[in-house]
């Protein structure tokens, strides 16, 4: 072992030579092979890996779409139609990319909910959580700009409405909007820069995902019980246990994805976007993509232009403060019977906002949207800080292994159990 070389344990001489100089094999073995992972993950813990795969799918399909797309107002719509009709498998690549955006948001919303329910944002994982919020914001920007690229009616008018949000900025609002557009309306310069940024941001996301995972591997994963692993009994090596469990999740995820792509590829889209952009005529109902609807509903809940914009941005920025707004020492909602009910209500308010966001801005939807918006913020700013102090949580288990074994001990013991299938997972530790 020479000076300055990494002390590699890799057997294969070629890999060893590389590993001594750049210990990637050692790193992968440490972070994804033997990495000690709480033994009690449920399937909610699949969604980080699923999000990572989804990002890879979006980048792969996006790179190939960009090879055939023309970012010019006169040609963009036709170039997308050419992808659909003339390019070999273009329809498949585009439908995967289109529905991949929806799948990405489904996966990430579940991933965020997992973090909220099991208190994954609490110390020492605050920065891990905040990096996640950054990823979500970048995803929103990327998805929005991607939706503009086909240059259909919804592309154009969505871009117009969303960029006009910035006109609410006091004093310099209109100048900001002109600057964003690169002109006096959404036009070719806007389309060009959106295409450039839409291609760039996924790689920025990849970078922040790397930081997100690096932070995760410092603190280790949270788990459904929300208590830290104490000894070897509480963890399993990541491989093969969670590589296999993630693989099961990936199969289910791909089945849903494939169903969307092959049987209802336009279900989550909007037919108006198959009409070429027309700056002289606004569609009757401008609706954002489904994954933006809750925030759109918050925007419309406030009868004041600046107030609505501020509240909409605040509805996501408040997530950054979540680690400090939640004053409870107990992470998992399993042990917080009262807070859990209010969290479920918050989830309902989120879905109500999603529903209201898709409806026209008239009664009773406006009022319902205002109620749901009020509860959305009430949960974060009042209930969560208060409940941490007032609520008496259920007793926490001593350790993860005790809790898991205890749950098994409570099962009826004498019943007939099929051989093999019922082999005791606990014996392996």
């Amino acid at each position, binding site marked *: 072992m020479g000076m300055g070389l990494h002390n590699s344990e890799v057997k294969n001489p070629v890999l060893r030579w590389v590993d001594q100089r750049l210990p990637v094999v050692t790193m992968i073995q440490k972070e994804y*092979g*033997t990495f000690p992972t709480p033994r009690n993950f449920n399937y909610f813990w699949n969604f980080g890996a699923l999000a990572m795969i989804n990002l890879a799918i979006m980048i*792969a399909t996006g790179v*190939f779409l960009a*090879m*055939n797309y023309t970012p010019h107002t006169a040609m963009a719509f036709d170039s997308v139609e*050419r992808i659909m*009709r*003339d*390019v*070999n*498998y*273009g329809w*498949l*690549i585009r439908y995967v990319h289109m529905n991949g955006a929806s799948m990405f948001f489904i996966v990430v919303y579940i991933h965020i909910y997992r973090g909220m329910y099991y208190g994954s944002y609490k110390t020492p994982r605050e920065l891990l959580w905040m990096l996640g919020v950054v990823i979500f914001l970048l995803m929103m920007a990327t998805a929005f700009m991607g939706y503009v690229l086909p240059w259909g009616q919804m592309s154009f008018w969505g871009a117009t409405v969303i960029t006009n949000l910035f006109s609410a900025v006091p004093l310099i609002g209109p100048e900001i909007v002109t600057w964003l557009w690169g002109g006096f309306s959404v036009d070719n310069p806007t389309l060009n820069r959106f295409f450039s940024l839409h291609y760039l941001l996924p790689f920025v996301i990849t970078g922040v995902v790397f930081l997100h995972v690096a932070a995760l591997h410092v603190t280790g994963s949270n788990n459904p019980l929300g208590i830290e692993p104490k000894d070897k009994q509480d963890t399993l*090596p990541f*491989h*093969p*246990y969670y590589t*296999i*469990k993630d693989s099961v999740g990936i199969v289910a995820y791909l089945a849903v994805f494939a169903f969307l792509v092959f049987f209802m590829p336009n279900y989550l889209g909007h037919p108006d976007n198959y009409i070429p952009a027309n700056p002289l005529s606004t569609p009757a109902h401008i609706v954002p993509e489904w994954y933006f609807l809750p925030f759109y509903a918050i925007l419309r809940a406030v009868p004041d232009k600046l107030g609505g914009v501020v509240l909409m941005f605040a509805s996501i920025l408040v997530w950054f403060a979540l680690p400090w707004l939640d004053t409870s020492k107990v992470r998992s909602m399993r042990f917080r019977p009262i807070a859990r009910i209010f969290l479920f209500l918050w989830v309902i308010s989120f879905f109500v906002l999603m529903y209201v966001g898709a409806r026209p801005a008239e009664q009773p939807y406006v009022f319902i949207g205002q109620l749901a918006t009020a509860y959305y913020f009430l949960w974060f700013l009042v209930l969560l800080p208060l409940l941490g102090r007032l609520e008496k949580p259920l007793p926490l288990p001593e350790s993860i292994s005790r809790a898991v074994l205890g749950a098994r001990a409570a099962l009826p013991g004498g019943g007939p159990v099929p*051989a*093999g*299938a019922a*082999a005791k*997972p606990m014996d*392996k530790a």
Partner: protein
Amino acid sequence: MVEALAPGGGKHSVTHEDAAGGHPSDPTKRDFLKLTTAAFAAVGAAGLAWPFVGSLAPSKDVLALASTEVDLSPIQEGQAVTVMWRGKPVFVRNRSAEEVREARSVPMSELKDPATDQSRVQRDNWLVVVGVCTHLGCVPLGQKPTDAKGDYNGWFCPCHGSHYDTSARIRKGPAPTNLVVPEYTFTSNTAIRIG
């Protein structure tokens, strides 16, 4: 999950160590499962790659422009026209009797890429060749009356000095083969379709 792969009774007892590392000796059911899994994964990966690789091949609109019609009626004897076919120039030349005689009087032994003139044309006077030098892809001169036609009265490539004769065969210079004769058919006495 792990037990299901190596059920009780098998000689392969499952622990963390061999789950991560595996035994080098003795092919086991586990080895078989690993190999079949890898085989399925390889087929799956190939299936995934297929549409991506396929999307790089010429699309339907490109293929739809893959043939070109040429009206021969305005081309007088001794004249030549250049038409675009699949993004490349095609030389169509209405050769004079003198040029045809010249092309047919050359002994095969003098040719670098031997081919009779008869094998390169469908009708004696009409020569149709792809106007791309077989050396490195430049367009040879010789279509216009004012162009240099090279030492053999055919075409001359200015890039690296290849000389082609009146049958567009390479006679001198670095090009390895004759100018390519594309697939074409006479759709009438005065029209051809290339491609």
